């Protein structure tokens, strides 16, 4: 939860995030979208504790997993060791590390790639390792910072399906940052639209899954989001705020 959070990197302050407040419901898939430079990556870094807010408070759970746009895998460790390393750092015992690593590699269909090194994998496979690593530590919240931006469209679609499958299986709370409206509508329960460092709107996405880009309801939601961002939508609709 973020309450009236602001963030400036310079003095005197020039806020990249201003009076930002947000609560994420348990097991929710929340997506934050906005144009480049609107502060959404700063928000996710504040959530992860990578940066401290200039003002306001951030309440975060004890264990957070994170998936990065650049994958952030250690090149000298195999796929298996990359996942196991993160799990072991949480203080789990060796048996649990082994079992958890094995289970999450299976979950992302990379059990046969366990002995490969990251440079031997495709971008999509590397991101699967990143997802497995983030989930293997059994986080209370999974943060995803534009996780598909470095991938081609075909790979991105595959990973969308995988992420949804894994999320529906694990029911982990997910907060994802994106600048693609279609991606946000495909994945999220709720979408926050950021503009100039503030949360301009929050939209409930009540469409049944799997969602298809050609569906009229899908297209209408995307158009509504685009309107919020461009400031041309006259009567914004905001979904109910969770408790």
């Amino acid at each position, binding site marked *: 939860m973020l309450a009236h959070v602001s963030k400036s990197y310079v003095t005197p302050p020039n806020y990249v995030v201003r009076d930002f407040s947000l609560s994420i419901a348990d097991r929710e898939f929340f997506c934050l979208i906005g144009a480049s430079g609107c502060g959404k990556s700063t928000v996710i*870094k504040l959530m*992860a*504790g*990578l940066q401290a807010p200039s003002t306001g408070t951030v309440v975060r759970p004890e264990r*957070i*997993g*994170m998936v*990065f*746009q*650049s*994958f*952030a895998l*250690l*090149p*000298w*460790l195999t796929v*298996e*060791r990359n996942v*196991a*390393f*993160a799990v*072991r*750092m*949480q203080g789990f015992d*060796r048996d649990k*590390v*082994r079992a958890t*690593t*094995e289970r999450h590699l299976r979950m992302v269909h990379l*059990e*046969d790639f*366990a002995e490969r*090194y990251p*440079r031997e994998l495709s971008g999509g496979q590397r991101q699967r390792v990143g997802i497995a*690593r983030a989930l293997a*530590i059994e986080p209370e919240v999974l*943060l995803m910072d534009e996780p598909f931006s470095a991938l081609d469209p075909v790979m991105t679609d595959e990973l969308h399906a995988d992420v949804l499958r894994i999320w529906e299986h694990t029911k982990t709370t997910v907060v994802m940052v994106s600048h693609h409206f279609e991606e946000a509508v495909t994945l999220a329960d709720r979408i926050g639209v950021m503009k100039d460092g503030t949360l301009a709107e929050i939209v409930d996405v009540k469409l049944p899954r799997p969602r298809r880009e050609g569906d009229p309801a899908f297209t209408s939601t995307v158009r509504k989001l685009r309107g919020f961002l461009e400031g041309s939508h006259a009567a914004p609709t905001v979904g109910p705020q969770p408790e």
Partner: protein
Amino acid sequence: MKVNRYPRHHHMPLYETTPSHYLVSIAIATGLAIGLTALLVHFVYPHNAFDVNRISLGVIVQGALNTLARMVLAFILSVAVAVPLALFIGSTPRIQTIFLPIADILQSVPVLAFFPVVAVFFVANNAFELAAVFVICVSMVWNIVFPVIGGLQTIPDDIKSAAFVFRVRGWRRFWFITLPSLFPFLVTGSLLAWAQGWTIVIVAEVLHAYIPKGNPSQDLLGLGSLLVDSNAQVKNGVFLASLTAMILVVTLMNFAVWQPLLRLSQRFRFD
């Protein structure tokens, strides 16, 4: 039937050790062993005098081993100094701004310019071996400092962020993230350091040239002193044999040490 890829006896290699950890441990253990032995030798036998007129193959082999031991000890000491120094200088932009120019000036000072003063000091304290090791070490240090500082800049921000999020902090971050990240730069710097060291060792072992009223009996037995003293006394056979020995040692090191390390270091590079 799907085979269980993780049978109970499978030793899943966890994060605890990586090749860089083994290498560092082996290097430190070897260096300590060699260093302690060398110190013991030089206190029992303050210097290993030799007569360039009576050089056998065995003496040349002994000289090669002596030179190698001095180089290894100097290298271990130079890494022990250079890596913390580089980590300090590269720690923040502000410290870099202050100390990088200072380091740049210091590395420009030719080590042989102040070697006579150093040599006199060590010889006066009966530490002949340390005189040579010290000057070789100083010549090696800067070749490691600057690549390591450069290496610190190449660690991606996302890796640092991932380390924080996954609770790899403090000494664990240094041991499991920073040190392996620096491995390719340590290898490159070490290669340059040894190249510099081979140049300096040739003069570092010829102590008598730097001691007031010195004589060749004060030289340390090694490939450097054999080359210089045999050349001074026109002992061409000894000179050629010593030169050949040096080339052999350098070539063997290249094949046995540097090439494998360079290949291994590729695994540690960020794309």
